[in-house]
């Protein structure tokens, strides 16, 4: 599903974010990405959804060679990838329904399909009665559910989650994790960057630790492994 071969990423200011990363993530895997801040986790994920291009090396996602993609083709590759952020990144003037439907609209889904699918996904994330609420009227956990609904509404093959529980209290975080696990059970590959030691140690998955731009550790049912 995701394959990186000797990926290097150097930013214009000279920062070496990644220094020779090779990794293979199979379809339907659930991967935690751990490591200190600034170690390269964000860059790792941005390369997958083609927000950044590698300075060196090969990366393929869902069969597409991401590094060599023509700009014109980028939107179509992104439709296979759902992204979830720590700060939710919802459009504040759109309702929960509109925020989710927006992701379908902009890839030109016929209207009759949009309504059905959007309601279906809102129900899946547990926001059935909240579809008409604006983000400001929702709790943090509910806003993240909208974010997740938006990420999965187009049935992506991969979900990239950048600290999805970073702004949430422990209880809400577990609700979100249960939701992500269910999405994973339904066949979606998930790559999740996190600093949440409790979640990583209790909900055991593959752990990839990035330190100083290289993969320091890659364990099938790993632990968080850092003292806070």
């Amino acid at each position: 599903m995701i394959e990186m071969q000797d990926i290097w990423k150097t930013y214009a200011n000279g920062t070496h974010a990644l220094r020779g990363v090779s990794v293979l993530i199979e379809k339907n895997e659930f991967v935690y990405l751990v490591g200190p801040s600034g170690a390269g986790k964000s860059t790792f994920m941005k390369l997958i959804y083609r927000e950044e291009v590698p300075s060196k090396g090969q990366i393929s996602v869902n069969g597409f060679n991401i590094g060599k993609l023509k700009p014109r083709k980028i939107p179509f590759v992104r439709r296979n990838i759902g992204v979830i952020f720590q700060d939710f990144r919802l459009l504040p003037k759109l309702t929960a329904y509109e925020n989710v439907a927006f992701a379908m609209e902009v890839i030109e889904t016929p209207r009759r399909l949009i309504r059905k699918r959007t309601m279906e996904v809102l129900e899946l994330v547990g926001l059935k009665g909240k579809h008409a609420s604006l983000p400001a009227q929702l709790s943090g956990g509910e806003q993240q559910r909208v974010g997740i609904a938006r990420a999965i509404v187009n049935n992506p093959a991969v979900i990239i989650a950048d600290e999805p529980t970073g702004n949430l209290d422990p209880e809400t975080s577990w609700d979100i994790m249960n939701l992500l696990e269910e999405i994973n059970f339904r066949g979606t590959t998930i790559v999740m960057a996190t600093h949440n030691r409790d979640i990583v140690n209790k909900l055991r998955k593959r752990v990839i630790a990035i330190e100083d731009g290289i993969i320091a550790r890659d364990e099938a049912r790993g632990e968080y492994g850092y003292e806070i």
Partner: protein
Amino acid sequence: MVMRFSTILRHFREGAKNIIRNGWMSFASISSIVISLFILGVFLLLALNVNNLANQIESQVQVKVYLQLGVEQSKIEELHNAIANMPEVRSVQFISKADGLELLRVSLGEDGKELLEGFDETTNPLPDSFTVEVIEPQTISFVANKIKAINEADATVPITNVKYGQGTVETLFKFTTAVRNIGLIIVAGLALTAMFLISNTIKVTILARRREIAIMKLVGATNHFIRWPFFIEGALIGIIGSSITAAILLVLYQQLVQMTQFELGLMMIKLVTIQDAGWMISGILFAIGTLIGIWGSTISVRKYLKV
């Protein structure tokens, strides 16, 4: 690339919705269009009137020949032919005293009615006259002197007065040309300023929506798809702004024309009528407003699509 009809509808719906959703930003854009175009419109009208005035003044470069009271019809015809046969003369128009009164009535308009009320055929104080237009304004004094010579050679001395733009013709032409050129420069400068101001405001409104554009890109919208609603929004803002401007400007101008008709009429000056200027001014404002709206939004969106 063929766009589906439902997609086109969506772009229009989205473009219109965005104007309402981003109420204050739209208000700012529309206001800046209205203000800039209003100033431009005022100067356009001013330039139009100055040009019109220059034309009027130029066309007034003519010889007025006033006759004695009670000159014979045959003598009038004789004089008419003599003047019309001069090679420098373009046209001679006989204006009877009745015609003269009528012309005065028209040029003074509603307000002049009272003033001219007491005059009819018998009490008409105006003399018969000729209006002589020359082909070259420079020959005007020559023609005037020729007419005077005819008068002096005639024993009945039928002409009381010969008036023309005494030697000021060339100065006048230099002046009108200068006024026209300056007007053109000011209007061009204002149009550029308006474009800059408006596109800047639109740039700011789109800057405030980087987030929206970023999310659209993230979920896989094509650049093409992202650009359309902004394009339509820009056009709509331009259309709304220029319509408001044209309406305000023309209503105010109509008032001005009516209010000043009498006073300016006394000075033999006539403002360009709204019938003559309205469509042209509206057309220019509309075209500039719409183009700037589209241009401003297209440029600004393009900038943020290159992420």
